[in-house]
């Protein structure tokens, strides 16, 4: 990982017209200002992770796989769940 020390008011630039400036830093965190072309998506990482997880989850919610999951949740159960 590249580590760069910056003070408030200083910036880093990326190719493609992206610039991130450190606006403020205090005990509660830092505030960033981001300039980027409109086609560049900028997301908080936790939102990005949630999007990824939701896309994956939506693609795995099929009946057969759900029943496999259920078997994991009920390792000692002998009953066969009905179709969803």
């Amino acid at each position, binding site marked *: 990982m590249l580590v760069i020390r910056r003070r408030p008011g200083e910036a880093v630039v990326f190719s493609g017209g992206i610039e991130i400036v450190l606006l403020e830093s205090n005990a509660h965190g830092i505030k960033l200002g981001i300039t980027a072309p409109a086609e560049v998506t900028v997301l*908080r990482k*936790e*939102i990005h*992770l*949630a*999007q*990824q*997880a*939701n*896309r*994956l*989850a*939506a693609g*795995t*919610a*099929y009946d057969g*796989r*759900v029943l*496999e*999951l*259920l078997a*994991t*949740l009920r390792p000692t159960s002998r*009953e066969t*769940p*009905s179709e*969803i």
Partner: protein
Amino acid sequence: MNQETPSYHFPEGIPAFEEHKQFRLTRDPNLDPLLFLSSESEPALRFVCIQVRFLVSGYGYDLDEAGASLLGVPPGNYTAVDENLGCMAIISVGAEGPSTANLLAPVIINFGNGLGLQAVQAGSSWSHVHPIELPEAQRCS
């Protein structure tokens, strides 16, 4: 929780599916403790969920001003066992690896007013790919 509940309104949709605002939460007793969150506009879009309290103990989450406003509750810290707010995790069902639950972004439903939100947590120690191993698994009653 009823076997089939009314539709819930998610004012902001959920991440990656923001256009889906209306979801139905269904339960099949044969498939406890799983729940199914399906888009009303596109029923094929559905998510396998589980109440977080059946998955881990001591789980809590924050609702900031914006999130709390969307749910119609005061901002603050809530727990997975709050009676008025349902707290569920969306599950990614593993094909080869273990299935995982998204504890970074619990789905919160206010049963009192029918509003829902996927409350993405900032700075949480919980993972978006929490492996599902249920040594403390409890069955829904």
